[in-house]
């Protein structure tokens, strides 16, 4: 594990007076899936949302420490948040397609970036919908309202929408928690395919999911990163007693 895509060093985060992340350090490798696990409220979603600065939207947040993306500090003065978020995309817990047509959803990021050529938009839409394995479901109804799709297709639409802006990193915040097992399996397959081109960080409550899809895992507890290792090792020989307790189900 020599290459590092995202290097998190001594990250602390407070919501008002609540200390949500305590001196978290973590090195996320490129072109791999890194899972963050831990009980509810341990700070894993907060950590994820620090990576593309989505926490900026919440009033009263204070952050110290650094997050280096390819060596550049994402909290540094020189970085533009909108550009950062194009490089570090996010899939949310609940599928959140916009109340627009399927096509308009996929090309949203391109329009934001100033691309208005219809041919380019359409070609990119097809490419991304294919990459998200959604093309065959929606190719005949690209102008339909995206909210008419079933939930798992909505979530894959959100992935397609993200791929269109060609991010380097994809953050997934419990992307399957609103989906049934079959839909979950489809998203997991998709992740496995995507990981060769993208660095993926996923937050999940589902131990089996973490074990199935991820290459590396970090276990968090009460705002601290208590263990980080390759997934195989963590799930077979956890180095920390608390990790073992959590994995085997002794924590909620």
């Amino acid at each position, binding site marked *: 594990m020599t290459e590092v895509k995202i290097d998190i060093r001594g990250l602390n985060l407070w919501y008002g007076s609540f200390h949500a992340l305590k001196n978290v350090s973590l090195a996320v490798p490129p072109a791999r899936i890194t899972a963050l696990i831990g009980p509810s409220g341990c700070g894993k979603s907060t950590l994820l949302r620090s990576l593309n600065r989505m926490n900026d939207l919440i009033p009263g947040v204070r952050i110290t420490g650094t997050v280096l993306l390819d060596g550049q500090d994402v909290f540094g003065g020189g970085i533009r948040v*909108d550009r950062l978020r194009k490089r570090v995309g996010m899939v*949310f817990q609940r599928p959140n397609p916009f109340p627009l047509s399927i096509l308009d959803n996929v090309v949203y990021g391109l329009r934001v970036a100033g691309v208005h050529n219809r041919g380019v938009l359409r070609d990119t839409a097809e490419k991304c919908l294919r990459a998200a394995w959604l093309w065959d479901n929606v190719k005949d109804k690209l102008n339909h309202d995206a909210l008419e799709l079933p939930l798992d297709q909505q979530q894959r639409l959100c992935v397609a929408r993200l791929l269109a802006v060609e991010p380097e990193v994809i953050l997934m915040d419990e992307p399957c928690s609103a989906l049934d097992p079959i839909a979950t399996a489809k998203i997991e397959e998709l992740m496995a395919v995507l990981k060769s081109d993208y660095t993926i960080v996923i937050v999940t409550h589902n131990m089996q999911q973490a074990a199935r899809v991820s290459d590396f895992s970090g276990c968090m507890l009460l705002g601290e990163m208590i263990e980080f290792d390759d997934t195989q090792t963590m799930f077979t020989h956890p180095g920390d007693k608390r990790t073992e307790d959590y994995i085997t189900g002794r924590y909620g």
Partner: protein
Amino acid sequence: MIRIGEKTVRRLLMAAAFSAIGGLLLIALFIFKEGLSFFIETGFRRFLFSDVWDPQSGRFGIFPMLVASLWVTLGAMTLGAPLGVSVAIFLVEFVPRSVMRVVKPTIELLAGIPSVVYGFIGVMVLAPFIRSSFGGPGLSLLAASFILGVMILPTIISISVDAITAVPASYREGSFALGATRWQTVRMVVLKAARSGIIASVILGMGRAVGETMAVIMVAGNAVKIPHSPLDSVRTLTANIALEMGYATGRHREALFATGIVLFVVIMILNTAAGVMVRKRVSGKRG
């Protein structure tokens, strides 16, 4: 202690509810009873599209007033709709919630100012200003449009703010996460999601503008003629009823009631349209 039974309370509340509906029905019935026969005798087209209003000689064409009402309303919307919607966007998207919680009720207070006060300000400040800067009598189509444009602001702002606030946060998050700026997010997602609510607010504002009487009488000048410039003096449908009802008798009085029917129908159509838009918003809120 005397306990009022569940049934009694239910009946009392039901009576109250029906008295409100009953009031509406009685008013509608009364206006139609007084005006409908005139409407039918004169003929729809001669009443609406003849441009001579001369009660003395028995000629009742409301076309000049119809045109005046239309222009005044259009003028008010031209000012009020973009301004009101912009204020709503600003309040929801660009200032902290704590500021909005102070500013929004303050704006809503504007709706509590009696219309005669708006009219008074129009007469004392706006009309002289228009007279000295643009010419004409001052009391004019322009003055009426401007005053009405301000009067409908609270309606438009308040309902638009509610519509924009109701847009799920997940849409905004999704948009930001794709690298959109706040303005791009507003323009491309939020306004689309809040569209029907915003349209409803504009329609309700339009309803207010069509129906407003006192402020308009004070600033519009009230000459019965088709306006050729925004600086002309005009008389709206509502102003006509209010100005002449005091001394009208016979056919003249019936003609005014018939004018009332026209207004009644227009407002009903506007309110129903607004209601449809609001319901559309609620049913469109999924996922």
